[in-house]
Structure formats: C-alpha cells, structure tokens
C-alpha cells in the first residue's frame, strides 16, 4: 500500500511558524527538506516599503493551494511532504509572508525544483493581493499573470 505523505495548506492571519512547518512535512522517509520563505522587502533600490497588507479570497485560495500541491506531486514524483502557507493581514519589513516546504528522501529527488514550482504557481493562481504602504501613501499591487483555461483545477469547480 502506498504511503500517504503530509500536505499542509493554509491561508492564515497568524505569524508563520517555520519550525512547525518543517516538522509538519518531515516523515521518517525524508532526508531533505527544502524551505522557501518570502518576506516583506523594505528597500527596493532607493524605494522604501513600510509594510504590506495582504487580502485573500479565502474560499478560492485554499482550493488553488490544493491544486498546486496536486500539480507538484504530478510533476515531481520523488517528493514527499508539501506545505504551502500564505499569511494575510498587515506585515512589517522582514516578516515572512509566505512559505513553501517540500520534503524528500534525498535533496536531489526534486525538492528544490518542486518548491520553486510551488511558489511560482502560488504567485500566478492563488487569489491573494498585497497593498503596499510607503512613506508617501499606499496602493494595491497587481500581478502580471492572466489565468487561462489550463489554470482551472482538474478536480472541477467547487
């Protein structure tokens, strides 16, 4: 019988606990865990960001996280545990806003590639938006990806 590996998907207002995330994806079959964290960047060249505030279409966002986890498992068959966590609400400079964790038997089993795929996909299809506050005011940031038919979940609509 096939082993079922952990999948942790969350859109949360709570601070992301990176140690808990690593523990959640780690099984006795694993020798490697890749953990990616996105944090609030306070300086972009000479531009200053004071904080980011994230909003989600929660009900759809969790379905899209599940779709991404499905896609990761379909593309990288050597990976084991997956965690995809997006925090929402206001966040200060250097705070983690998002985390992707992937475990595998060995580091060469696709864990790096799967984590990279996971964060790239999250930024394309998960309905979350950030509002940037700068010294001169605040504005919503819009992404540059336009969803297409292949971005629908093969599981079907809710």
């Amino acid at each position, binding site marked *: 019988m096939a082993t079922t590996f952990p999948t942790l998907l969350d859109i949360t207002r709570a601070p992301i606990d990176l140690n808990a995330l690593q523990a959640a994806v780690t099984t006795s079959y694993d020798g490697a865990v890749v953990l990616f964290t*996105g944090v609030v960047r306070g300086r972009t060249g000479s531009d200053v960001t004071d904080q980011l505030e*994230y*909003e*989600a*279409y929660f*009900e*759809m*966002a969790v*379905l899209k996280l599940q779709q991404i986890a499905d896609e990761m498992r379909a593309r990288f068959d050597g990976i084991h545990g997956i965690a995809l966590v*997006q925090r929402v609400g206001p966040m200060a400079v250097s705070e983690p*806003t*998002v985390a992707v964790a992937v475990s595998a038997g060995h580091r060469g089993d696709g864990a790096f590639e799967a984590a990279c795929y996971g*964060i790239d996909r*999250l*930024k*394309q*299809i*998960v*309905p*979350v*938006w*950030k*509002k940037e506050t700068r010294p001169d005011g605040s504005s*919503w*940031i*819009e*992404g*540059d*990806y*336009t*969803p*297409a*038919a292949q*971005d*629908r*979940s093969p599981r*079907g*609509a*809710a």
Partner: protein
Amino acid sequence: MTIRLFATLKDRAGRSEIEIDLPAGATVADLRTRIGEAFPHLAALAARSVVAVNREFAFAQDLVHPEDEIALFPPVSGG
C-alpha cells in the same frame, strides 16, 4: 446576482459586494459588460479583472447562473 469584489475593485467600489441583474443564458462576457454599465466607475478596472465562478477561473464564453458564486478581482499579487 451578487458579485464579490477584492483588492482594488473593493476599494474603488467602496464595498465588498455589488448587485447586478443578468438575463438567463448570460455569459462572463455579458457580466463584464453589465458591470461596466451599472457601475461606470468600475468599468476600466473590470475590463482587466479576473472573473471567478464558483471559486474557479471563468472566461468570456462561460455561462453564469443566478445561484453561482461570482467574484471579480485584479491579477493576483500574493506570495
């Protein structure tokens, strides 16, 4: 029919939901047109927004039904 709004669209509308009337057999393309007519201040934003029907991406020719959960939002910027 209720349309849920997010991010820029919610701020521009000043609320998180708007109501529009659509005839039976209407498509996502019709929905965009109707939103632009009923809420001219949202028209430009709506034209480049993403439509979701029942929590899934929807496209111009897709049908919308009165009981559907409809959402309109800008290209996503999470992460």
